[in-house]
Every structure is written in structure tokens, then in C-alpha cells.
């Protein structure tokens, strides 16, 4: 059964939650709660993921092989928590997204420079 891939092309913008999860896992592997906290901090509270929303996104990201599960034996932690880390594919998707942002920012900067103060005033009116 062919299923439409959601993050398959480098040029397709990622959803905010996927982007922030990838970003949080780019530093080190984390479990659900750590990911949620990191996403909340990085997005300055704009993205709040509950357990259901987070694991729904994680499921899709696992299917797309953007992340993988990692076994971690923490003897202090009696719970069988699953940790997740970025795959190479995930890293490249994140890099592409960051590059897309950088390119967009560059274009925006250039456009702003080309617009004269008079034009800006006209636009704002």
C-alpha cells in the first residue's frame, strides 16, 4: 500500500512540531518528556505538545525514518523509557529546513534593502 510520505522531499516545509522535535534531538537523544520540554523552551512556549500529540508526531517521524529508537539502560530509572535520536535522513531534512529558512531570510533581507523608505510608508498606508 503506497502511503503518502509527509516529510519526503527536502523542499517541503516541515510542520512546526516536526521541526522543533528534530531540532531538540539534534543535540542528543531524548525521551518524550525531555523532547516536550526542549520544544517548549526553544519555541518560547509557542509550541506545547501533550503526550498524545507528541507521540502521534513521533510515530509519523519513525515511519518516515527521521528518528530511531535507542535503547538506554539507566539503572536509576526503573521505567522502560524509550529514547529517540536523529537518523542521517533526519539530520539532512533538518539541515535542508534550516537552509531553507536561511535562504528565505536572505531573500527577505535583500527585498527589504531594495524597498525605499518611501515605498515602505506607502505599503504601510
Amino acid at each position, binding site marked *: 500500500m503506497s502511503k503518502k510520505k509527509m516529510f519526503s522531499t527536502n523542499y517541503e516545509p516541515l510542520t512546526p512540531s516536526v521541526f522543533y522535535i528534530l531540532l531538540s534531538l539534534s543535540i542528543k537523544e531524548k525521551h518524550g518528556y525531555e523532547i516536550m520540554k526542549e520544544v517548549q523552551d526553544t519555541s518560547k512556549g509557542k509550541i506545547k505538545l501533550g503526550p498524545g500529540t507528541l507521540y502521534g508526531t513521533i510515530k509519523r517521524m519513525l515511519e518516515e525514518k527521521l528518528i530511531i529508537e535507542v535503547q538506554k539502560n539507566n539503572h536509576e*530509572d526503573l521505567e522502560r523509557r524509550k529514547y529517540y535520536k536523529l537518523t542521517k535522513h533526519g539530520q539532512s531534512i533538518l539541515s535542508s529546513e534550516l537552509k531553507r529558512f536561511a535562504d528565505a531570510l536572505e531573500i527577505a533581507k535583500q527585498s527589504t534593502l531594495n524597498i525605499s523608505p518611501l515605498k515602505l510608508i506607502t505599503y504601510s498606508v
Partner: protein
Amino acid sequence: MQNKIIMPSADKAYLWLLSFYPEKYRKEYGEQMLYMFKDLYREQIELYGTINFMFWVTIVKDVIISSSAQHFETMKQKSLQEIALSLGNSVLIALFILLLLTPAIADLLYTSSQIFALLNMNLALFIWIMNNMPQILIAGIVISIILYLITIIHLLVVLFKIKQPLFVKLHNLYIRFKPYFVISNILSLSSFMMLIPLIIPFFVNVSGVFTQETGILFKSFFVIILTLSQMVKPSKLLQSIGLIWFALIAIFVGYLLFIIYQEFQPQYYGTFPLDDIKGVYKLNYDGDYWITYYDVKEQCTQINSIKQCNTSLIKKGNTSIVEAPGELDKYLDKSIIVTGEFVKIHGPGGDNKQFCIKSGITSKCRKSTGHGIWYFSPLKIKSIKLK
């Protein structure tokens, strides 16, 4: 991580909320979601010293949104065959629920059969206590079954004018105590609804395709029938419907008995990596029973118009017998001829992946071993004979 804060009630509440997710998703991520919930709960306690109402609102909102998304995702992934199977099982489930709806029909035919309200209250109580006090649960179920049977007998006596002395006695018992069954039908309705969570897991185990959406439909069906039963007055027409009702139940009970009979027949389930099942088998034992399959190869040579042939056995593969009675021991390490039914199904492959074999409405599951794609068969061995 420190997870020392004990919050059993909150955990239980969240576990209950997790039941709204599709079963497969819940098995995969439920445990992790519970850990995350515990962390959020602990964070809330550490920050505010208490759990406020908005915490639960956020959690419930998250469950509603994400569980709906997951159900939608599951439905999209279902093949036509699965949907057809789901519908087929739904018919069976509908019949089972019709059986449970007999109380409503009793109300429909002969109003004030409050005995069912008591029965339902019992069942509701059992659901509540079933985790802690199994003795009371068993006693309660026995009482409920007795009450249920008495009422069925009462209906049979009224409908079919049965004169059998024991039936008449029980009918009189019902009539005599009827005024004391004063518990309202509202309680009956609500406790019936409480029955649903008890019924759903049974069907999930049996068929594996019963969904919560279907459960909601049945709940609505319950409410409609029970409400109607309170509004309609007894009539000849309704009594005719009652007769049809009992006929349906009789068919259903017969079908159930047939399934139970089939279930108790010896069945052997195995895995077969081969298409061709004709040949010579050898039964081995290595924790499980194994049948080693050999291809019979005939090699002939012709020297001066004289043909000489030798047969040799070439090992082609193994198949395991999941369920094997002790009598198979006598065939160990001997060549055998197996006759039976073999159905080839595409298996999951890989180590420790669970596969399930469906037979009728039941399914049996076990972990697969070995890599690659396996073809496994619900294998009903009719006979095993020595070669």
C-alpha cells in the same frame, strides 16, 4: 529520573483515557505516554503544589485531538478485506448485544420487569469491584445469571404458555417478587452503558477488529431501545416481535455452541515455508514439536536399457506445531504422513514478530522466529500416521 511520587488515581485516570486510542497505537506508545503524563503531573505538583482543573482540561483535550487523529489514520490504513471482516464481525457482535438487550424487550412486552434493573446494577457493581474482589465478582455473576434465567423463564411461560411445573414455579416467584424490584429503569439504562467497556475487550481479543466507533454506535442503540421500551405499551404485535426475538436468540446460541464445539476440537497450528505439502515428514522435538519436511527425490540411471532408481530424501524445511497433544510423542523421530488442511498466508518475517492465525472468530498468536518472509498456515491435521 525520579518518579517517586505515588499518584495511583491520576495514573488510573490517564490509563482510562488511553483506552480511547486504537489498540495497536496504545500498545506501542501507551506506556511511554503514561511516563510523560507522570512527568507532567510531577512538574505540576512541584510548580504549584497541587493539580488544578486546567491541567486535566489540557490532558483531556490532547487525548481527544490525538486519539481522533490516530483513529482516522487507522481507518485509512485498513484494506477492503479488513473492512469486510470488521463488518462481518459486527454482525456477530450485534447478535450478541441483541441477546443482552433481552431485558429491554422484556420491558417492551411486559412493562415493569424491574428485575433487570437489579441485574444490571449487579453487573455495574461487579465491573467496579472486579479488580480487587474476585470472590464477590464470581458470586455476583452467579446471582445475575440466576436472575436472568428466572426472567427468561418468566417470559417463556407467558409467551408460550408453558405448563412445566418448575418453569411455572419460577414464573410465580418472579411475579411474587416483582413489586420489590423498585429500582428505576434509568439505573438500568446507565448500568447497561457501563456494561459496554466490559464487552468491548472481549471482542477485541476475539476478533481484533472491533473498534471504539462501533462501540459508540452500540451504546446509542442501547439507549434508543431502552428508551423505546419505556414508551411503548404491550400489544399483540409486540408479542409477535418477542417470538421472533427468541427465535433469533436460539439461532445465535446455537451458533455460539457450534463455535465452542469447534474450538474444543484438536487443532494443530504450524508454520510452513513451503508451497508443496506432499512428501515425507519427520516429527522432532526441541521444546516445541517440529515437523521436518523432506522432498522425495528419485534418481534413475539407465544402463543397457535397465533402469535403476534410488529414492533419497532431501530436507526442505521445518514447520513447527504450536499446539501438540502428548500422543504425538509416539511419532517422534519417525517418518510420518500428515493429512489435513493447509492454508498459505503471507507471514510477517523477522525475529520476535507476533503473528496471529484466525480460525472462525478466534485467533491464536505466537512470536515468530527466524528471518525472512514466512508462509504460515492454520494447519488442521486430521491424521498423523507412521509411514
